[in-house]
């Protein structure tokens, strides 16, 4: 990070000096900034182990085994809360997480008012107001494989893979979308504080547990691959799986003040 931040500065400064001499122009130093940046590192796991696409076999609590070839979701409507209860809604915050694209696991959010934040909330999927054909912003690109053109709506989350216990075909295809399936999540921040201040990029480390799609504290919401292995638009299981991951997928592990 430090190289990224300062290399342009080192290049630009001598240039400015030389060029000021050449063209005789002046610059004005801006006031001390009132905003800064922070980062979110999303760490995909399956239970206690890191997620490895395609090659690794995982096991659910009920003993059913599975592999993962695709895991992606829309991470949107980011809000930060201060201890006094005031909320900062990050404008235009629509991000795509894709386990196959390492760059998508590290989000940098800029122009955030400086201050100490003690809470975070977001939506998995897209808010109803923007879930339509015309809206595209950030991660909300219709070409991102998370959009159903024929119904003109975004898919909140996709997971695909295989399981020897799965019914027909031994394959798993979960496309979680449709009306009423976007979920707002506010993972516990605990004692963590996110100190947004000039010259620093504090970083929230948040694990994303894929196992949470299939396991719930409510037994009727557990997913049995033998009978539920393909969930598509309109499936009654889509909101159930959305409830499952909203409840348990995200954990704030720690915050680096940096």
């Amino acid at each position: 990070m430090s190289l990224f931040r300062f290399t342009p500065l080192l290049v630009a400064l001598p240039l400015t000096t030389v060029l000021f001499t050449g063209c005789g122009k002046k610059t004005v130093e801006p006031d001390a900034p009132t905003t800064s940046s922070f980062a979110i590192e999303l760490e995909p796991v399956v239970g206690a182990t890191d997620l490895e696409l395609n090659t690794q076999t995982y096991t659910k609590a009920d003993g059913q085994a599975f592999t993962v070839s695709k895991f992606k979701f829309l991470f949107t409507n980011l809000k930060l809360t201060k201890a006094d209860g005031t909320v900062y809604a990050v404008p235009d915050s629509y991000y795509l997480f894709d386990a196959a694209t390492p760059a998508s696991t590290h989000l940098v959010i800029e122009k955030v008012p400086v201050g100490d934040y003690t809470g975070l909330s977001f939506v998995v999927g897209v808010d109803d107001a923007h879930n339509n054909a015309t809206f595209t912003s950030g991660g909300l690109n219709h070409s991102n494989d998370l959009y159903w053109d024929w119904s003109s709506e975004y898919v909140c989350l996709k997971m695909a893979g295989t399981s020897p216990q799965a019914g027909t075909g031994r394959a798993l295809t979960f496309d979680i979308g449709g009306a009423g399936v976007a979920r707002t999540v506010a993972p516990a921040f605990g004692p963590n504080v996110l100190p947004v201040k000039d010259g620093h990029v504090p970083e929230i480390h948040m694990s994303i547990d894929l196992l949470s799609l299939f396991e719930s504290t409510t037994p009727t919401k557990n997913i049995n691959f033998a009978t539920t292995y393909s969930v598509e638009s309109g499936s009654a299981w889509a909101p159930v799986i959305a409830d499952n991951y909203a409840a348990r997928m995200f954990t704030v592990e720690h915050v680096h003040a940096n």
Partner: protein
Amino acid sequence: MPLRTKATFAAGVGLLLSLAGCKHDADTVDPDGPVVAPTAYNLVVPTNFPPPQAVPADNPTTVEGIALGRQLFYEKGLSINSTVACASCHRQELAFTDGLARAQGVNGAQSPRSAMSLANLAWEPKLTWDGAASSLETQARIPIQNPVEMHQLLADGVARLQATTTYPALFRKAFGSSTITEDNTLKALAQFERTLVSSNSRYDRFRRGDRTALSTYEQQGLVLFTTHPNGTLRGGNCGDCHSGDLQTNHTFSNNGLDRTFADLGLGSQTSRPTDNGKFRVPSLRNIALTAPYMHDGRFATLDDVVSHYNEHVILNSPNIDPLLLNTTNDPRQQSFTLDLTTTEKAQIVAFLRTLTDSTFIKDPRFAKP
């Protein structure tokens, strides 16, 4: 130092530009007269299409750049023995394919792959069957230098262009200099290719609101095309990958053609065994014009293609797309094949034929100049 990195960087760049301005005033004299800036070209996005990929900042689309790119697209001098142009394998009347199973290059050389249709490339994040290029500028060099295609170093092609009486002036109009470069050659080709927009099929008219554009039979095919079957709803499950108005989700997939792979596809680019056998999910636009089908042209007809997905998917093919494994019309959801009826298969093929854009293949803007 309280200055912010970005602001400082921007200021540096801005002043660098002003310096260039000072210098230019002082010592540049072009014997051909002052350089006239090219005319910006605004790509019209069809109302039923999503936004296209961002155009590279260093290659804005211009009228003069497109005209040059079109000339280059039909230029056989870019091949080693001046017999093959881009247009040789990408013929407009076939939606820019060649009608062959495998593309034919210089001296009768045969590519292991089928020439891809060129339409709506401005929307594609990855190009070629194996995703070897992420921009049209990068892609354009591949067939020019590939030994089984045009087989000539681009540098040699540039030298040939420079020696002509026509190209230096065209490059000057498009890029401000009559000294031809490899980069500007690729940029011009990319600009022309971005204009190859196909959006006037009957299906497009249907999508834009003309409910009479498709017959009832074709509409039944459309419903089957887009439906993921679940035992109650019947469907062909085509639209999970060939989604939307561009008929692609822009991913790479193993569609169960083979048990072992003569061509590794995406795996040849990423070196990941789990990508072996995956190829780009192509748009189905103008699909009735682009036979034969698949990356190696193994299927002669659309009926063959639909039969593959319905009955002949190799279920134990490594890295096969899970969507091909658990999708069936069997009411008990226990069959391992799609189980469409003969009529349903014919309806899907009838729908596929509505994706033909007869204006695209006759558009004079894309023809040999």
